[in-house]
């Protein structure tokens, strides 16, 4: 049961071959069995899950038109506020925070009838590419426990890959859905900025953050996107452009699909074996009717400096609310107000978070604003224009998600810059706000490789169609890691 798709589980639930309660119990026991090794969950909400599963079974019995997601056990990245369930952002700062409200993403999925198994581990406040920056400890890659699962949605990726949930939510500010999906061999979609509401999602960088599905196939991602996408009056930046039926054209043939291959994605720094896997995947698309065209995204290299100014700047302001006054961590015995602020924040935030807050504080401060923040935003426009121009010529753009496969735990912790450079292929997508996916496309050195498929604004249906056709023709997404038991 555990490695099956939403579609097949939905069928079995309706055929009474299994029940949501049974399914939920299976997943909960697998979590007990394997998550001691992986550390992919921060909170397991078993009581709530079982109650939701019972309700789902009743709904399935009573309503033939129940959503396809009814009774499907999922997990949420621990930055979605969940009413009555601890929501930590993997930070000591929110170690004890139980929101009395629900994020739009999780509430829409609840309305679709999912079962919430728990909240997944992540890099603290979504800052990181390895899931090593968690107050609750690093997450391990299910394919190799010595390796990182990627980040920041590393817990969600590991849990899906290990069959500790059917699907999970993630968020992507600079690659945080795609890179862990790539490292763990699952399918992940970062939608167009504004396609999914950010309400109730604890912000890292407001103009870059976007929530999306992480699952075992493009089709499963489509079902989840269907549930969470669309206008939300609570988020001013959420688009009111109508959503599409994301499964309606998922099987459409790819004849004549023009695939752009940006030469900058295949240059120095790309691991040879990863390159081979991506080239093979592109050949597969040619077999499916695609036409390859070499293109250029000339400002790709600038996405790193632009991102590492804009994201920390927004973060420095977004994270000011964590001050020990209304919720979250407050230091012991503050001697005065200033002491309370500085020690609560100094003790409550981890090192990477503090570092980014300081970078952002510096970039926005008097005398530096123009040279850093405004400059980064001008470059952001250049990066967006590169994509706009490219999509005048091609339907989708393909390339690797990351220059390498999952690296070793601890391998890059001493060299933050090397870690930042890992994000080179993903950051520009967030700066431009376009949608992109990571799709399993083979293995290199025994670890999964993700193919990145980028699309024009609001072309999620197209991306899902392209990814789905690939998954019909290949079986990379069906591969499972062999798990190690242990507490």
């Amino acid at each position: 049961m555990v490695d099956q798709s939403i579609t097949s589980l939905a069928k079995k639930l309706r055929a009474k071959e299994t029940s949501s309660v049974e399914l939920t119990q299976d997943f909960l026991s697998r979590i007990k069995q394997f998550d001691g090794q992986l550390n992919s969950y921060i909170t397991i909400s078993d009581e709530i899950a079982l109650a939701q599963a019972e309700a789902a079974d009743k709904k399935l019995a009573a309503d033939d038109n129940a959503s396809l997601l009814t009774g499907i056990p999922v997990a949420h990245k621990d930055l979605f506020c969940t009413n009555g369930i601890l929501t930590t952002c993997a930070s000591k700062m929110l170690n004890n925070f139980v929101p009395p409200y629900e994020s739009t993403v999780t509430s829409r999925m609840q309305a679709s009838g999912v079962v919430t198994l728990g909240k997944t581990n992540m890099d603290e406040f979504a800052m990181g590419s390895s899931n090593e920056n968690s107050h609750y400890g690093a997450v391990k890659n299910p394919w190799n426990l010595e390796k990182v699962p990627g980040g920041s949605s590393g817990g969600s990726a590991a849990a899906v890959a290990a069959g500790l949930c059917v699907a999970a939510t993630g968020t992507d500010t600079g690659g945080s859905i795609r890179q862990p999906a790539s490292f763990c061999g699952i399918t992940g979609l970062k939608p167009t900025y504004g396609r999914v509401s950010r309400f109730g999602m604890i912000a890292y960088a407001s103009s870059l953050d976007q929530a999306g599905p992480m699952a075992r196939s493009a089709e499963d991602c489509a079902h989840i996107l269907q549930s969470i996408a669309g206008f939300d009056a609570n988020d001013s930046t959420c688009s009111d452009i109508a959503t599409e039926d994301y499964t309606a054209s998922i099987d459409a043939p790819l004849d004549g699909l023009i695939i752009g291959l940006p030469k900058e994605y295949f240059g120095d720094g790309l691991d040879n074996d990863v390159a081979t896997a991506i080239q093979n995947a592109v050949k597969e698309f040619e077999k499916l009717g695609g036409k390859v065209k070499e293109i250029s995204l000339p400002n790709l290299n600038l996405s790193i400096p632009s991102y590492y100014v804009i994201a920390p700047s927004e973060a420095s302001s977004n994270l000011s609310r964590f001050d020990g006054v209304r919720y979250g961590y407050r230091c012991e015995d503050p001697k005065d107000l200033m002491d309370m602020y500085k020690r609560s924040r100094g003790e409550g935030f981890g090192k990477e978070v503090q570092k980014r807050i300081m970078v952002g504080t510096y970039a926005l401060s008097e005398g530096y604003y123009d040279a850093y923040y405004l400059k980064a935003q001008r470059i952001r426009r250049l990066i967006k224009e590169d994509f706009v121009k490219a999509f005048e010529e091609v339907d989708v753009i393909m390339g690797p998600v990351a220059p390498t496969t999952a690296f070793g735990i601890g391998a890059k912790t001493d060299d933050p810059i090397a870690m930042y450079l890992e994000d080179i292929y993903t950051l520009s997508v967030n700066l431009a706000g376009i949608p992109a996916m990571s799709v399993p496309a083979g293995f290199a050195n025994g670890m999964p490789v993700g193919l990145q498929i980028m699309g024009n604004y609001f072309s999620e249906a197209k991306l899902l169609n392209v990814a789905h056709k690939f998954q019909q023709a290949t079986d990379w997404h069906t591969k499972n890691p062999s798990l190690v038991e242990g507490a």
Partner: protein
Amino acid sequence: MSLDKQDVQKIAHLARLSLSDSDAEQYKDSLTSILDLVAQMQSINTDGVEPLAHPLEAKQRLRDDIVTEENRRDAFLANAPQTEAGLFLVPKVID
């Protein structure tokens, strides 16, 4: 761009982060290397390029002026470190 420990402490103060001396030493190096990384932007000519704040360049939607929220004070206060008489408590504020 190279920061010294005092610069780091100044930034940390602005951001309300307590840093020990050894923290400041560590951050001095890592912040400097990040600033070096982002410094490559300066070599790019962006004259006449408008800053891009939001990817979609959409416009702000407006909310009708109606009261939609009820009092949920108790639920909100439940997460607070210290409260009394419906108030959040903080160490004495001196104006």
